[in-house]
């Protein structure tokens, strides 16, 4: 009987309906703060947390820790659990230093990676910033406008953010001002692309509501 129930459920639009109810419950916040929104918000946090835990248990801890340790005799994996248990001492007032120990180890690793990352991330960036401002074509030197603008923008914006030299002087002030104008273009681009990004997410949900739930037909 349970199997028949399962078959029937899987053929219905139940999942879509549940999705639509969830979506509309969240959108209810746009009218005003209400208990339905809060209820579904809590469900969201619960489901997200539960998903994370079950995934890690089944895909990471099971095959990569329990299997080798118990079924293949790699007993030393117990130290992974013991090391991770140090994190949980953050709840004990007396033994909190042990959590500091493991956190310190991971922070140290991250710091070490930071040194490496600076070289591998920034090194090629610096190399790519050396762009020829004057190119020679057919024996005639001419300025490359794009590269020129690039260099001006890069240097003035870097100077604008460099606060160890006072920007009060006339020349320093002028350079910083040019940098400020040019960095506005960057901020404008970020804004334009952010708007695009956020709107796409809304379009996705509306598409779900209109086409998957209400079965309206898309044009074309």
């Amino acid at each position, binding site marked *: 009987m349970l*199997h028949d129930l399962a078959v029937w459920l899987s053929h219905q639009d139940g999942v879509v309906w549940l999705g639509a109810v969830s979506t509309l419950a969240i959108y209810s916040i746009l009218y005003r703060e209400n208990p339905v929104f*809060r*209820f579904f918000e809590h469900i969201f946090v619960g*489901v997200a947390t*539960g998903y994370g835990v079950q995934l890690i248990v089944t895909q990471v801890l099971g095959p990569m*820790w329990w299997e080798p340790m118990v079924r293949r005799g790699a007993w030393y994996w117990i130290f992974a659990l013991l090391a991770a248990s140090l994190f949980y001492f953050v709840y004990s007032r007396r033994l909190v230093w042990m959590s500091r120990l493991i956190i310190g180890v991971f922070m140290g690793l991250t710091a070490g990676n930071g040194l490496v990352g600076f070289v591998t991330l920034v090194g090629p960036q610096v190399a790519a910033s050396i762009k020829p401002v004057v190119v020679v074509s057919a024996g005639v030197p001419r300025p490359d406008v*794009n590269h020129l603008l690039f260099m001006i923008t890069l240097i003035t914006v870097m100077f604008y953010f460099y606060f160890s030299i006072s920007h009060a002087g006339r020349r320093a002030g002028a350079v910083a001002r040019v940098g400020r104008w040019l960095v506005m273009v960057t901020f*404008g681009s970020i804004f334009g692309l952010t708007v695009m990004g956020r709107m796409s997410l809304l379009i996705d949900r509306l598409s779900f509501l209109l086409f998957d739930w209400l079965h309206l037909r898309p044009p074309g």
Partner: protein
Amino acid sequence: MIVGIVKPSASVVLTLAAILFGLLGVYLIGGRLRPTAGRPVRHVAAVLIAVVVGHLVLIGISRYLKQLFRPIAPPLGITTQEYTVSRALARRLHLSQRKGLEITWMSEGGSAAAGGLIPTDVVLGLDGHPTGGPGDISRLLRREGVGVGSLISIRLLRGEQMAEARVRVRRADVLAVYRYHLLLLVALLASMIAWVLAFALLNRLPAGAKKRLVVAATFVAGVFYSTEYFLPAQSRLVWWRAHHTNPLSEWLGPWGTAAQVIAGFTIGLGVINLVLIHGKTIGRLRRGWPNSMAFFAALVAMLVFGIWQSYLPEAAKPDHLVRVVYNYLFDGFYVALGAAVFSVLAFYIATAAYRAFRIRTAEAGFMMAAAFIVMLGQIPLGMWLTGGIDRSSLFAPLRVENISGWILAVINMAGSRAILFGVAVGALAMSLRIWLNLERGAFFDQEI
């Protein structure tokens, strides 16, 4: 002393590590690395002794720890799972039984490997006896007459062919048969006891020493990753070239595997936090406690059905009840709610556009102009607006998608890169400060 025992490049690492070990020892015990006034000789002697001791300890560690941290092999060095041969194949090969044990893992130096078995072989019989259940191999190896050096014959299915293999029983297998689980249990318990004892001892250290221990651990951890990258490969100074490896590189893989397991265990921290908060709300019947009940119900449901559908082989079929409930939870709740919560931001951008984006200065106007061009350049509507300009004409750069592309690729790129440089230098400074314990603040100045 070193050169004869280990390879030349490893000796470089060992020497560096020994120096590091020596300095750390002095730091942990004495608390300061700078020589105290009037006692330079004693200090230098302490460092030299520590370096020598460090060398010996590290060699001992690398030799004897490697012996200690070896896995206990299961019987024959294989792990298996139950396997049922298809009816058609069983009929074709005239098999009397369909149940077997598929080899899912094999240790490389084990007796099964030596006998020619490979993973995915299905063991059907051992010395004429059928092997269909999980304990059958161990049971059959415990038979009268089977001992160290015995040759056993294994009947197996490889792909769609039958095959025979002969495996010589080794001492490790005999031990494993009788004592695999016992040895495992002993090893696990001993490790846990040793760990608890070690930390009980460490806990008795004075607060200053504990702090120095944390600082030392942070420093050593930082040394590992950075040194692995910067250390020349085989004494060539070409660290900036890709693909080099040095003796530290072989530790990257094992540490990566360990790190992901340790990181996996830490998910409990977030769960505990949430459970405490919502548990308190329910326990004290504070306002909104039904919502906290919903949280727990959702958490438990996803946890139970997620794990259930993963371990139940029948649940792979889409019609199974467990799978159906899981789909409701995943698609109906998780995906829908997650997407909806994020999409609400779009509405707030619209109101912000109307009410908050005030163009009060010329620079703000310049920023908005750039934003408008970029926004128009992404969309077909914008491309249609300047669609009149022919794509191959001289004025083609004035098409909005080209202007927008140019702004993004030249000016925006330069500005972003400048910001990236600033951020990168800041991140580097922060990394150095954390690594060398120079960072101050609430977390770092905490009493230990």
